[in-house]
């Protein structure tokens, strides 16, 4: 295991569009090499987070070391990294790619190339990867391997003549994949004698081991007891344990060049582990650091507040631990008049936001309120000052604003010809500008520039529904542009709810205002009093709805002397009220907040 000769190591990522079968292929590779005992095997073994299993998606990249006895009679060490397919988790993919020399590009042979296939393969090409195309799901009657091969060549420009045709589900031709890994992917390079240089790929918090760091050794040796230094901040630590993933963590004596594994070093400070950092020997530090990673740039921000103000400390601790495990998650302290102490948090998209919120509540037992998600605006004030607006509630008075700029994206949408019409209509409704429209067979590829704000909330859901699930979508942030933007305030019972205010294009303001009022009307349960809900720009009301008072709520029988039971029920109701937000004489349950914005249609 450790100190394997470099030419007997292969490090690779499995990349693909969502659901094309990456995790299932990883299962088969793990299984056919006997890495995991048959009785411990389960579907999508690497999707070990509760949320991943529930939703059937990969959220975190995972690493496994497998040993493969190849046809040439040699045993190879293969380090496999299964990556997520969803665009919100692209940062996981990019970091995995940086730790490997090659990629398996999995393409569903019945669906063909999709938007994330493109996005991920271009990243792999940028990372100088050798790429082996894999046509998966050829067991499906609808599989068209020949057509999809052609598509890979036409759209991506990758030679697909040697694409490996497999079924990850049935296990067909997994041997072919293993052989391709050994024969077609390059071994890593590195110098065992040079001073230590290891890339910090990922980290997480383990309740037994503390902070665990995933590393890829480039040069030198990583050894138990060694004193290492984080090059970004100079912090030094003594290594307590190094090891590999099988996928269980198994301790080893050392990790040599080209190898992947983990280390623990009693690291206390979350800020001491920065993904992309270079770990070197503290006594003989390397002269220069590895290139590292581009930091992730959050595209959506929202406030997260503890429902119970007493939980703020717990939230602080939890966001720190979560950040350790999710370097694309950003946070900064924030105070809101209505909600108290909390954090402004940055995400790569709405799914990411939802997942983080879920993880905070499940893994750390926190009950949170999320404010309306917002993109980052740039404001130019009349006095020349420029500020970034992460929170619409912080918007200065319009009279001192000279210009508001909003982020735009470049989107790639792939869709069967039949659904192109509605897709283009959707893009146009969202202020999109067409950049390019090309065809591959009967599939259209539309490139659009769109304001991110128009995409962040429900664009993806809408796209999926108007294309019956056939359209795929990927995007990159593409600069800022001035826009005619206004802040819309939401008033519940005549009181503004800062947590619900949002920015919108003036042309969309009425529609967005109306739709959120309608949604709130559905989401806020009827109460003792009727509740007016209004959307307003400044002092001008642009939409209004009224939730009528509930018509009956009384226990029919209050019979007999057991008053304690009724009082306890009342006490519980009163306790429940504490968890709601008071607006004058009415309360809003927190779930109304995010749901209202998410389903803005």
């Amino acid at each position, binding site marked *: 295991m450790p100190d394997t000769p470099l030419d007997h190591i292969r490090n690779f990522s499995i990349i693909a569009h969502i659901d094309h079968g990456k995790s299932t292929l990883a299962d088969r590779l793990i299984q056919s090499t006997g890495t995991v005992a048959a009785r411990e095997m389960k579907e999508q073994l690497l999707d070990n987070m509760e949320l991943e299993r529930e939703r059937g998606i990969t959220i975190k990249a995972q690493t496994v070391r497998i040993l493969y006895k190849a046809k040439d009679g040699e045993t190879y060490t293969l380090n496999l990294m299964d990556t997520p397919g969803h665009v919100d988790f692209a940062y996981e993919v990019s970091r995995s790619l940086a730790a490997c020399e090659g990629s398996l590009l999995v393409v569903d042979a019945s669906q063909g190339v999709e938007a994330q296939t493109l996005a991920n393969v271009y990243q792999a090409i940028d990372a100088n990867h050798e790429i082996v195309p894999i046509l998966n799901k050829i067991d499906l009657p609808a599989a068209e391997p020949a057509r999809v091969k052609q598509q890979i060549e036409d759209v991506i420009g990758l030679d697909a003549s040697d694409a490996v045709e497999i079924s990850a589900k049935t296990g067909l031709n997994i041997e072919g994949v293993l052989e391709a890994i050994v024969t077609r992917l390059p071994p890593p390079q590195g110098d065992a004698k040079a001073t230590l240089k290891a890339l910090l790929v990922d980290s997480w918090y383990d309740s037994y081991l503390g902070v665990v760091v995933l590393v890829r050794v480039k040069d030198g040796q990583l050894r138990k007891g060694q004193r290492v230094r984080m090059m970004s901040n100079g912090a030094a630590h003594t290594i307590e344990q190094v090891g590999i993933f099988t996928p269980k963590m198994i301790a080893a004596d050392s990790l040599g060049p080209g190898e992947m594994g983990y280390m623990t070093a009693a690291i206390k400070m979350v800020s001491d582990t920065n993904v992309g950092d270079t770990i070197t020997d503290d006594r003989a530090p390397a002269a220069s650091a590895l290139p590292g990673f581009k930091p992730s740039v959050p595209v959506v921000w929202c406030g997260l507040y503890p429902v119970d103000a007493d939980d703020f400390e717990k939230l602080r601790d939890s966001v720190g631990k979560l950040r350790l495990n999710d370097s694309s998650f950003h946070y900064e302290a924030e105070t809101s008049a209505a909600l108290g102490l909390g954090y402004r948090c940055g995400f790569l998209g709405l799914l990411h936001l939802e997942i983080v919120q879920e993880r905070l509540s499940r893994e750390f037992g926190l009950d949170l309120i999320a404010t309306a998600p917002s993109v980052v605006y740039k404001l130019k004030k009349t006095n020349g000052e420029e500020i970034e607006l992460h929170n619409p509630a912080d918007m200065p008075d319009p009279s001192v604003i000279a210009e508001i700029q909003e982020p735009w994206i470049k989107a790639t949408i792939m869709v069967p010809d039949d659904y192109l019409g509605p897709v283009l209509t959707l893009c146009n409704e969202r202020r999109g500008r067409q950049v390019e429209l090309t065809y591959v067979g009967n599939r259209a590829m539309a490139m659009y520039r769109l304001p991110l704000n128009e995409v962040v909330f429900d664009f993806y859901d809408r796209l999926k529904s108007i294309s019956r699930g056939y359209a795929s979508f990927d995007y990159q942030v593409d600069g800022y542009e001035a826009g005619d933007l206004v802040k819309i305030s939401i008033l519940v019972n005549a009181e503004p709810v800062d947590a619900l205010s949002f920015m919108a294009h003036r042309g969309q303001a009425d529609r967005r205002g109306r739709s959120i009022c309608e949604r709130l009307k559905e989401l806020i349960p009827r109460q003792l009093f009727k509740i007016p809900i209004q959307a307003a720009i400044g002092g001008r009301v642009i939409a209004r709805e009224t939730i009528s008072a509930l018509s*009956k709520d*009384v226990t029919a029988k209050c019979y007999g*002397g057991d008053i304690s039971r009724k009082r306890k029920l009342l006490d519980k109701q009163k306790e429940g009220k504490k968890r709601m937000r008071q607006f004058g004489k009415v309360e809003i349950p927190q779930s109304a907040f995010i749901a209202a914005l998410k389903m803005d249609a």
Partner: protein
Amino acid sequence: MEPLALYIHWPFCRAKCPYCDFNSHVRERVDQAGWRHALLTELRYEAARTGRRPLASIFFGGGTPSLMDPETAGALIAEARALFDAPADLEITLEANPTSVEAAKLADFHAAGVNRLSLGIQALDGAALQFLGRQHDAAQAIAALETGRAIFPRLSFDLIYARPGQTEAAWRAELRRALDIAADHLSLYQLTIEPGTRFATLHARGEIALPDDDAAARLYGATAEEAARFGLLPYEVSNYARPGAESRHNLVYWRYGDYLGIGPGAHQRLLVDGALIAVRRHRAPEEWFARVARDGHAIVEETALAPEDRAREALLMGLRLTEGIDPARITARSGLPFAACIDPTMLTACLDEDYLVWREGRLCATEEGRLRLDAMLPVLLR
């Protein structure tokens, strides 16, 4: 000292109704003499503590107290009269189920001293009675009403409405038919799904659907209209009476007065030297019985309630009554100034909305307010 109300619980029924979460149990055999003795024992235990106080009422509740030997009722009534100062016209109510067996015993109960009958009719529609799992049919219900009216000076009966699929027209007709037989008092309950009952399971599975709030509110309005035609006025959320015929016993609960509760699972509230003492007894019949035999009582909890809890109890009970609450009484029963019991902004809001009104110094929930009491109390009470 305020007169005391005395509640006596008989925990046995012929069958468990699928909607019922009362402390009721089905037993093959009940040792009537043993139970008579045990109930008398607990009654004496409490009387020894309270001393000789005026008595306001006796109520035999259940379960199904009409399954009790009339002799047992007679013995308890006689003992209560001996231990407390009881007026000649002491209200003595018995809950009875309208099966023919029980109807046959009604005269004996009257002879034993019961002067007010509360019949668990529940419905006059055969299918509805079956749905409610009742042991009687519509004919027996009507026969029991007629017998009861002939024997007892005061008669009340219970109906359960807002049943699945029940239309307003059908309910009005059913209620009118019952009222034609005449009663001076009615308890008309909308069907409630109580946790842990058979109906709760069916409801969770979607096999029972209750009318929505709007429909339930309409049925409630219709109920008051029909009762009013017969001169019965709502004096509590679900109780209607000819003026003067209100249940004195139940009024003690709603006015948060002093009451003794004897028998399995019975509750009791007594103001003793400024402390309000809440008592709860063991619910399981056999365990209750064994404890009484051993200790002379089966009290499992006896606590002095905190002033805030007393205020909440007094208000949550009192606002159910049409007569509302008297701030001075809330203070007397809780030890707290009225202003400390109620959120002033919510009070104003509820008054503005006409959910509450001040009537001659009493705070009353209007009909609209009573309809929404469960939503109002948690915001109104401190």
